[in-house]
């Protein structure tokens, strides 16, 4: 086994271990009721934000494209999940909650995946800043469209309406335009969230360490070199983009089914930026980092309610400082001078090697 391979294996094992350990500890805390109410209410959202961060990291960290419309996929998933779950309950009479949840999450993933393909085809032809601004545009378009969609259930039939609500009286509304998805039964559970996080980890960690993952990273590091080595760039970028969209859709369904209503305003550009902050702080291309930063930054605002006004300000400053510290050559060489001797001390005389995934 080569060194790089061993490092990767250790990294993956640590990542899984951290998530499983967190789940076990939290479950035992729930069992003996030593968990605070606010934290308990945050468990499912934490799972969805962790999945969002990991999936966005796949696009930004591994495929090297800045996507600013990730919340759009989340909203597609959340709405689809709410509609499917509502339909199954009202029209089909499916009472089993876990079954409804599973079908809703799967449907959310599929719908977001389809949106991902449709958006990816035009978007991935572009590069750099243009790509970023178009993903932003798509995020806004999705938000605009869900504002004018009306879905209701009438007996066993689903009814749709666009722009104006012309559904007849007596229809059970599932999605009511700007009012959002209404009357959702809250069926998301922490266990379901945990399972979904584990699925995400398995998918992403296996993808980035596979042949396809190496191709994705090659297109990130040097698009032209990768292309001339015969790597079909658009195909692999598409693979990363759609995988991330599917995962974001599932996270959206999980998130949506955790509250009784969801409104389009929950999935704005700001939400995409929030996830971006998770990813950047956790480290681009570092899955475990995304898990930790998404968890901490979701809990932190609840703990530091008194500083709520300063939270976003601090996010902004941290975002800028992290970027300068990791990208400025002078700052980097200065940091290396401090970090490198420390690393050498820790590792004996072996030379420090790039230790990321």
């Amino acid at each position: 086994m080569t060194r790089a391979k061993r490092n990767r294996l250790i990294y993956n094992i640590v990542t899984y271990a951290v998530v499983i350990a967190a789940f076990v500890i939290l479950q035992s805390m729930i069992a003996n009721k030593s968990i605070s109410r606010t934290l308990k209410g945050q468990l499912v959202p934490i799972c969805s934000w962790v999945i969002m961060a990991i999936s966005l990291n796949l696009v930004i960290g591994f495929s090297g494209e800045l996507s600013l419309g990730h919340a759009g996929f989340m909203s597609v998933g959340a709405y689809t999940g709410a509609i499917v779950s509502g339909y199954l309950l009202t029209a089909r009479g499916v009472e089993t909650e876990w079954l409804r949840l599973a079908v809703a999450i799967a449907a959310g993933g599929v719908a977001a995946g389809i949106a991902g393909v449709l958006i990816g085809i035009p978007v991935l032809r572009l590069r750099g800043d243009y790509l970023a601004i178009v993903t932003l545009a798509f995020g806004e378009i999705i938000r605009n469209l869900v504002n004018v969609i009306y879905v209701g259930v009438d007996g066993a039939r689903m009814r749709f309406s666009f722009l104006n609500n012309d559904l007849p009286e007596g229809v059970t509304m599932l999605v009511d335009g700007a009012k959002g998805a209404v009357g959702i039964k809250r069926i998301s559970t922490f266990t379901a969230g945990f399972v979904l996080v584990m699925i995400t980890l398995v998918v992403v960690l296996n993808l980035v360490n596979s042949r396809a993952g190496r191709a994705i990273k090659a297109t990130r590091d040097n698009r032209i070199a990768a292309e001339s080595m015969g790597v079909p760039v658009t195909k692999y970028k598409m693979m990363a983009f759609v995988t991330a969209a599917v995962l974001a859709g599932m996270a959206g369904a999980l998130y949506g089914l955790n509250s009784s209503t969801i409104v389009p305003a929950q999935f704005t550009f700001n939400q995409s930026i929030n996830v971006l902050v998770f990813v950047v702080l956790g480290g681009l291309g570092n899955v475990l980092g995304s898990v930790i930063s998404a968890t901490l930054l979701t809990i932190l605002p609840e703990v530091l309610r008194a500083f709520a006004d300063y939270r976003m300000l601090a996010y902004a400053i941290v975002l800028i400082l992290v970027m300068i510290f990791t990208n400025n050559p002078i700052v980097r060489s200065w940091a290396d001078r401090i970090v490198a001797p420390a690393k050498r001390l820790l590792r004996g005389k072996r030379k420090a090697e790039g230790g990321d995934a």
Partner: protein
Amino acid sequence: MIFLNNLISGIGLGSIYAIIALGYTMVYGIAKMLNFAHGDVIMVGAYIAFCSLQYWGLPPVVAILLAMVVCTVMGVLIEGLAYRPLRQAASLAVLITAIGMSYLLQNLALLIWGANTKSFPRTFLNSSTIPLLGGRLSIPSATLFTIVANVVIMIALTLFTSRTKMGKAMRCVSEDRGAAELMGINVNRTISLTFAIGSGLAAIAGVLLCSSYPNLTPTTGSMPGIKAFTAAVFGGIGSIPGAMVGGVLLGVIEIFGKAYISTELGDAIVFAVLIIVLLLKPTGLLGKPMREKV
């Protein structure tokens, strides 16, 4: 008549986009970066003008000048503190920094001025309406001032970049930064100057925007900012006449889209235009094709 009215308000809105887009397009042409915080500089400019008029009782012209000075200084500071250290970094890092800067400005404004909507006071800019065609058509004076300001700025900037030494230096840097440096052009100072001009224009745009649409909040600048970037791309990024054409066209498309298709989908229509333009003609209407060097 309604058509003509819509057309004029479209051109008015488009002129605001055009002035904002000038800032984007100049910075993009020279520093090769998308200055995401540009939209929020507009918001700061509008707040400064608001405070000068409402709290300090300054005359409108002084208020506008003060807003311009503050924004110019701020633009130069933003560039020097946040973007200059990343001059050699990957565009992804610069873009994320710019997003961080945009967030920083919004949240600073939120702390200083609060989340409540401020109503922009009436000035000579928006105090009257001008009747045309025997009173069958009335144009708000703010729209007229906006269109005039747009044309004046456009001519002044074109003259500046084609006639003056600093303007020529700017064009050199945008064409080939390395070669410009070898010819003795101070690249850092030229980029600072570009940010200064762009931010000064942003202050004017902020005042004009709030004269036509007087609701001022910390996020006032972000949507017009994004749309103005769309306009800059539409017209061909890096091109000053392109920003003008793109801005005006986008404003007209938005107003017509809202009037004849759907009010709720106005933004969606604008962004759909952006996507179609980028797919069919990625260099925009007046942009020059870019070649990729290996």
